[in-house]
């Protein structure tokens, strides 16, 4: 077990370093654009050169990368090109918004997927199963930003039930916070449920056709107990694995939804970084999202190793 965790951690560290360098290169592929964007198109060559020297942008990319990585590791994300504000504290302020959104959306996705997937499996090949499978295919094709727009149209403009966007911290006004979060979370969660319904259905069908379920039924166990105690529990291993990866995916796709609902999270910070070509902001926010996704994947790897004893022996 310890060997598995150590090897996973080593792979994680390697991934993080390579991922950070990919991000760094991706952002810096076009040289000189940061200064031009910060100073505007009328900036003189002298002003541009001064800006680049001031922010160390005139040095070789490798040197810039090494410095950025070193500082980032000590928690120093640099200062915004645009307004000189420290990026690190701003990230910490924004992280809870995005986490709340992702967790809320994830809960919604599971609340839809678990019962529907399990029910479809119990009615395998019958009308309910076909209906639920069709629903999953339809949901899987809905762009989340379209769903978000339709929700605003119906719930805000037509029924005037929810505010169109904005953010109030939970600690300030919990009711307002939930009212503002429900549509963004639904937009992400409903679309995510499509994949999870399919996974739950497949996992349950597999379990329900296994020998121990047949044995349990043969012993005269009630169908409810068979499903609840034996089937769902065993279907959870593959489900949890996919669901956790899906959580990472959710976390990675918050950018558009945060933009639509004016949520001041990490995702909208990425956009701020792009629109202003504010590289420290863009790098720090993109790296934070990547880091969270990688940590989730790491946890999945280790926990699934625990759940499934065969995997552990293979790694030792």
């Amino acid at each position: 077990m310890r060997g598995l965790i150590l090897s996973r951690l080593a792979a994680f560290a390697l991934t993080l370093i390579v991922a950070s360098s990919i991000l760094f290169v991706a952002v810096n592929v076009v040289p000189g654009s940061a200064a031009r964007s910060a100073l505007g198109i009328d900036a003189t060559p002298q002003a541009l050169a001064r800006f680049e020297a001031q922010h160390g942008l005139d040095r070789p990319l490798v040197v810039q990368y090494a410095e950025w990585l070193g500082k980032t590791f000590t928690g120093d994300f640099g200062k915004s090109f645009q307004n000189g504000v420290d990026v690190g504290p701003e990230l910490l302020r924004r992280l809870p918004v995005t986490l709340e959104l992702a967790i809320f959306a994830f809960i919604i996705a599971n609340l839809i997927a678990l019962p529907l997937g399990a029910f479809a499996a119990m009615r395998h090949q019958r009308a309910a199963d076909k209906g639920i499978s069709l629903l999953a295919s339809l949901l899987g094709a809905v762009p989340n930003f379209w769903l978000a727009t339709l929700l605003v149209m119906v719930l805000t403009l037509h029924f005037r039930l929810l505010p169109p966007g904005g953010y109030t911290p939970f600690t300030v006004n919990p009711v307002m916070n939930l009212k503002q979060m429900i549509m963004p979370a639904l937009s992400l969660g409903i679309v995510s449920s499509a994949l999870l319904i399919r996974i739950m259905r497949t996992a349950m069908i597999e379990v329900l056709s296994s020998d121990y379920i047949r044995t349990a039924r043969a012993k005269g166990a009630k169908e409810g107990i068979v499903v609840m105690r034996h089937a769902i529990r065993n279907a959870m291993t593959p489900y949890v694995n996919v669901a956790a990866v899906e959580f990472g995916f959710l976390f990675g796709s918050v950018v558009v939804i945060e933009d639509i609902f004016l949520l001041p999270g990490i995702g909208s910070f990425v956009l701020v970084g792009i629109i202003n070509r504010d590289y420290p902001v863009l790098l720090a926010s993109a790296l934070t999202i990547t880091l969270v996704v990688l940590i989730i994947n790491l946890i999945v790897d280790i926990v699934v190793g625990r759940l499934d004893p065969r995997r552990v022996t293979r790694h030792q």
Partner: protein
Amino acid sequence: MTTAARKPFNWRRWRLVVTGGTIVGTIMLLAILAPWVAPYSPFDLNVAQMLKGPSAAHLLGTDELGRDVLSRVIHAARLSMMVAVLASLVGLVFGTLIGTLAAYFGGIVDLVLMRLMEILFSFPAILLAIVLMASLGTSIFNAMIAIGIIFIPGFARLARATAESVLRQQYVEQARAIGMSHTRILVREILPNILAPLLVEAAVAFSYAVLLESALSFLGLGAQPPDPSWGNMLNTGRGFMGVAPWLSIVPGAAIFLTVLGFNMLGDGLRDAFDPQLRDE
């Protein structure tokens, strides 16, 4: 093969492929024929006809500049299909190359290439696309490249797995034994035998490309106005949600239908060619 040919057409097996194929085919056809089938030019302004609801003259209404929404949606299909095809092609070509080389040479080449692919795969796709767009600059060509790069690891994984099973076949052994060059073996023996599953994967990549392109254009990072794209139409339409809901509904529905069509086609092809499901 001969017994399969004699069986009557199995509608159940091909139903997804036929339905998905019909949707995709129609959209492709509209995209190709856009200048001839669209009732109006997608750029013609007509201030007198601003924000008019669906009518006989404008089946899907007009937008905030009086342009015909139906014509713009049809022309946007062009752009979407072009991005989907080219981005998938970028992913297919480079992914196949990397995956096949990794499988063929094995050892350290395999390790380094596939580890790199794993890392690229662990990035949230839309985030990677957004960051790439930031540095490449916002244009539809760059959106295509960014989306293509995202597809590379998926194709590489699949190509490697398929190539490995092909490499174990006798004819590859024989090709090696008679001293065929690496390039010749890769191109003549391996490539043709791994192409089918990769092309099925391309159908799935298509649908994802349509989604990603529209998301990028929605954020203002893809197609630039006045060029119509489903993403930027939807984004502009949101500003007129209360007075002209069709501006938000129509482009979103177009994305939805296209993605659904490609998903059905991809799933259907995968099932139809899956030997385990073949005789079900």
